[in-house]
């Protein structure tokens, strides 16, 4: 059943409820994506003001998570969803939890941006952050796009990018360790950069989870943990 539709329930109200949680999920996705974009920019531009914006908006992400969760719980209690409806609810609940974690990681990056800015300017490590940051942003964008269209082929394609991110993370770590050895005075600073790319790498993992949820909604297959 590839032509997934969440309409045409005999109870029209149910269509609307499902549509609403989808809309909310996409809104939350949009917000989280923006948080990540700003957090990366805060690092690149050494801009504390932008970082403060990210930190201030983190509670909005949390609120959305709770609100969507509550709606899903209500639908389960009221409608006893089955089959694709059930899969949608389950996957949305999992997805919001991953989005919330991505939001947390973005906030971490923003806080580190403030620390790094206070420590003063030194460009070492920014190349790595920019590189991985752009990749993670693109991946998240593609995953949200696939979620909006329930495009499992796109999800499977997007999911593969996590491997690339992991590879780049590892090589960035090696690079940063070299900086530290070459210039021990940079250690504190480079460790903070390490925390940043660590956060970005984690975001890649959560984004991969999002992709897996799309496959679950569409095909009912659980591909988590290497399950094929």
């Amino acid at each position: 059943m590839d032509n997934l539709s969440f309409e045409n329930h005999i109870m029209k109200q149910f269509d609307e409820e499902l549509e609403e949680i989808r809309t909310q999920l996409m809104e939350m996705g949009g917000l989280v994506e923006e948080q990540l974009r700003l957090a990366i920019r805060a690092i690149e531009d050494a801009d504390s003001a932008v970082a403060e914006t990210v930190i201030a908006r983190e509670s909005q992400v949390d609120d959305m998570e709770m609100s969507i969760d509550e709606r899903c719980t209500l639908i389960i209690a009221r409608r006893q969803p089955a089959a694709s409806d059930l899969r949608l609810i389950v996957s949305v609940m999992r997805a919001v939890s991953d989005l919330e974690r991505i939001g947390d990681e973005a906030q971490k990056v923003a806080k580190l941006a403030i620390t790094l800015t206070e420590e003063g300017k030194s460009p070492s490590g920014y190349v790595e952050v920019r590189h991985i940051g752009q990749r993670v942003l693109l991946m998240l964008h593609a995953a949200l796009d696939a979620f909006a269209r329930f495009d499992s082929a796109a999800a499977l394609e997007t999911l593969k990018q996590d491997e690339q991110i992991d590879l780049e993370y590892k090589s960035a770590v090696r690079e940063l360790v070299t900086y530290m050895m070459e210039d021990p005075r940079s250690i504190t600073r480079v460790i903070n950069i390490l925390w940043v790319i660590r956060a970005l790498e984690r975001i890649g993992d959560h984004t991969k989870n999002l992709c897996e949820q799309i496959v679950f909604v569409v095909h009912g297959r659980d591909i988590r943990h290497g399950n094929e």
Partner: protein
Amino acid sequence: MANSEMIESVNNVSESGTERQTVGASFCDDPKFSIRNASVFYAEKQAIFDVSVDIARHEVIAMIGPSGCGKSTFLRSLNRMNDTVEDCRVEGGFHLDGQDIYQDNMDVVALRAQVGMVFQKPNPFPKSIYENVAYGPRIHGLADSRVDLDEIVEDSLRRASLWDEVKDRLHQPGTGLSGGQQQRLCIARTIAVNPEVILMDEPCSALDPIATARIEELIEELSQNFTIAIVTHSMQQAARVSSRTAYFHLGELIEVNPTEMVFTTPEHELTEAYITGRFG
């Protein structure tokens, strides 16, 4: 469980040559009941179209589908209850433990003891609780003495988890019990004659959630010793009590699959539409 023994269903080709295909796992090895190319007619009107399916030993199979799709008709054909309906004609193979139940010399009364039925509306006889349960074993000659009979009655009431509630008033009328108790009395009456298969046609639709929960618990227990086919309009009930679910649509068997699969990832889009409450 029987699920693992299920094999892929094959195409059924009806007499008219049109292809009817039941998707999923319709068949199993060494079935209790084996139904092949079953069609049921009421006069000229066909109500069941070329249904083939096996019912495994000690499984609970749920039959679901929109009103009028033929669930009751199909269920009734399993113990020849349709014989009592005028103008009703049944075609196809119905084998219980390999024996054709529609063969000419079949003892239909014995068959209905072997394949018992519990109906939607509890229908105790206008007699005492004791007599309701004792009646069957007596006419089938299952008890040699009063002591035997007492034992069968107690045992059946216990297995229907009604004993504790009625042991002090066995000789009061069965019709004086609550709806849920009456339904358990009917189940006790059915199991008193030692059936192998129990057919249930919406057994809980007249009961409140607590009485329903007790019957469902009972079904779970009974499945250790009996093979059960249950028709239900409650999707949640099908999901709770059965190991396989069969979806009927306009007299055709559309899909048979493990219940957990039917309710999470049904194979056929008609099944999906029905269980998610959409226009099919």
